[in-house]
């Protein structure tokens, strides 16, 4: 009996000690994540909550915000400019993503071979991504200048007259998309290249023993096994494209007319040119919702078709 009690006492003592230790470990963990948690809450969670709250208010940044209920949302649905901006954004994504992904894939396949200078080219193609988008926009503006730009100059040497690229409602958006393709293809290529190098060599060896040709090898082996990398690249690039702002801001300021006004640029105009902070918050929720849906669809598509384990 007494022995029993002694055992129980020891057990409860050790349980208390364990609990103490666990509390200590928990506390320690919280302390360790505190700095990044603070940043996460202060710079992400809090602003997101504020944006949701702000979307119910009318506020010009100076006066005190007025509660307007769902008025901003009603306005959004009847504002033809907001739908125009959304369509422009979708158009930009459609121009940008396929071109960028296919180009990056071709580059990755080319640079995956063992050849002289491939390491140099890997660096060269990534350089545009390392440069500042605003500075690049300014330089591209010079290139596309109808009077002194090099692009129209080359076209005129060939005996043609180039269009007024950035002041044309037809050409302005393709130009913006091209500049971004040029800028981000190298970056996308890096991920695809890493993905290619993760594919085990034996798979190809087995395929060649079975007499598989180059086209079959690409579509039956390389692309299916590249899906984890493609998935990552597509999801992040699509999100990034929906948020296009900097190139538009520098190169066209949304014009001519509304032809290059992407959703993010329209949000900027509403918030910082017209000082409709509440309405801008509502529009950013719309953009958030659109990105959420598109990303969700991508996840659903890729989840069933992606193999992560090559062993």
């Amino acid at each position, binding site marked *: 009996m007494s022995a029993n009690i002694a055992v129980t006492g020891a057990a409860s003592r050790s349980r208390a000690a364990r609990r103490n230790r666990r509390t200590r470990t928990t506390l*320690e963990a919280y*302390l*360790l994540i*505190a*700095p990044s948690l*603070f*940043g996460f809450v*202060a710079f992400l969670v809090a602003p997101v909550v504020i944006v949701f709250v702000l979307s119910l208010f*009318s506020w*010009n*940044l*100076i*006066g005190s915000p007025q509660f307007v209920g769902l008025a901003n949302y009603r306005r959004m649905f009847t504002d033809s400019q907001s739908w125009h901006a959304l369509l422009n954004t979708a158009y930009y994504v459609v121009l940008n993503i396929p071109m960028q992904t296919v180009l990056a894939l071709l580059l990755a396949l080319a640079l995956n071979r063992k050849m002289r200078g491939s390491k140099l080219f890997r660096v060269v193609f990534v350089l545009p991504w390392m440069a500042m988008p605003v500075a690049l926009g300014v330089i591209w*503006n010079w290139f*596309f*200048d*109808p*009077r002194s730009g090099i692009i129209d100059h080359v076209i005129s040497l060939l005996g043609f*007259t180039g269009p*007024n690229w*950035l*002041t044309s*409602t037809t050409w302005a958006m393709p130009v913006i998309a091209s500049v971004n393709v040029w800028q981000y293809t190298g970056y996308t290529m890096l991920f695809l290249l890493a993905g290619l190098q993760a594919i085990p060599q034996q798979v190809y060896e087995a395929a060649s023993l079975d007499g598989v040709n180059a086209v079959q090898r690409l579509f039956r082996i390389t692309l299916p096994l590249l899906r984890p990398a493609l998935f990552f690249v597509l999801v992040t690039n699509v999100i990034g494209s929906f948020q296009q702002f900097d190139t538009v801001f*520098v*190169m*066209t*300021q*949304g*014009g*001519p*007319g*509304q032809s290059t006004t992407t959703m993010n640029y329209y949000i900027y*105009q509403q918030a*910082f*040119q*017209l*000082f*409709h*902070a509440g309405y801008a918050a509502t529009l950013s929720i719309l953009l958030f919702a659109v990105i959420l849906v598109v990303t969700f669809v991508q996840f659903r598509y890729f989840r069933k078709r992606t193999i992560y384990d090559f062993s």
Partner: protein
Amino acid sequence: MFRRARKPLAAAAALASVAGLTTACGGSSGSGGVVNLTYMIWQTSEEAAYQKSVDVFEKAHPDIHVTIDLVPWAQYWAKLQTSAAGRNMPDLFWDHLEYLPELAKDGIITNLAADVKSSKIDLSQYSPKLLAQWENNGVIYGLPKDWDTIETIYNAKDLATAGITPAQLGSLSWNTTDGGTFVQALEKLTVDKNGKHPNQAGFDAGHIKQYGIALEAPNGQQDWWDFGVQNGCALQSKAYGTWTVNSTACVQAMQFEQDLMYKWHVAAPGTITNTPNGAQLPTILAQNTAAMTFDGDWDLDTYESSLPAGSWGVATMPTGPAGSGTVFNGLTDAVYAGTKHPEQAWELEEWLASAASEKIVTDTGTVWAAIPSLDSGFIAAWKAKGIDVSAFYQGSQGTTIGYPLTTAGTAFTNVVLKDMNQVWLDQMSPLAAANDITSVSNAAVASGD
């Protein structure tokens, strides 16, 4: 043991980084009883003159230190509104009529009426036209500090080559049927790559080497508003009234400017003057892309630094069907209603609007003074540099329209930028633009934002 030893270290590191994130804020109050005031302005070329004036002020007020915060126009208002949101506005800032009504509505600007009275400021010393714009029902939003008009700036060599004298430039007139003598002169100044003029056979409108004129304005102040006043167009029914931009007289003025570009081929088209390729007017003149421009006197310094001395000059604008006319505008210094140092801010306001300070600024040829008796100093300053700027003064004495007064200033500017950009690119008709501008701006007036 090892884990235990690390714990306080981790905690300390965590605390330190949290502390680091939170101590970055905090105001700057003066040391040793010195009050720090911030004075926000937007014109780079005027900073030196205002610094000169502020230096004199600081000498007389050793307990006040003034920091001039130069923020270019393109970012100025966004910065002002966001700093208002952060309750961190400059104590004094340049104010513009485009934004005054909205700022006043939100109670961000101090009513200076009581200070004016107690300090016995002689309001009659200021140009009455300027004073009227900044006063509303006994509320004074700022003391006038300067004024500006729009006139012609020309390249002297191009004018001589075309056989036109500066005096002749000032006597030109335009009309909506055949363009008048103004278009005839511009035809002489426009040259294609083969040396032909628009009124000559074989002129190649696709390859123009030098245009007669370049016109460029964010909202119309330096172009279609001036053609408008010369054609009897009123932008508004009355101050703070509804917009009447789609009236016949206004649409004709816009149409005339579009015709200068695409019918007569004498004005640089929107591809040269507009976003995104548009260069500044002084640059366009310096590069010989155009032989003349319409521009405000605030840009004189930029012309001086862009063009060799003696190679350019100022002339009056042409007269239109309704006579001569120009936009007349002026700025004030606004005192932030939430300033921590209202007394010192008023002292600075009083100084900047005094004859002594305005004389310092105008005698450098920076801006015309709001006190008319000082205007001769501006003319003398430019005469010393070989430029006769009296055309701007004549403009101010003739028919003028003021800057529109409206609570929908930002909405108006935004839609004008978008639509007129397309008009100058020949992608939209002036009537369609005028109708859109009128309905959007009037809707903004009605909804109060």
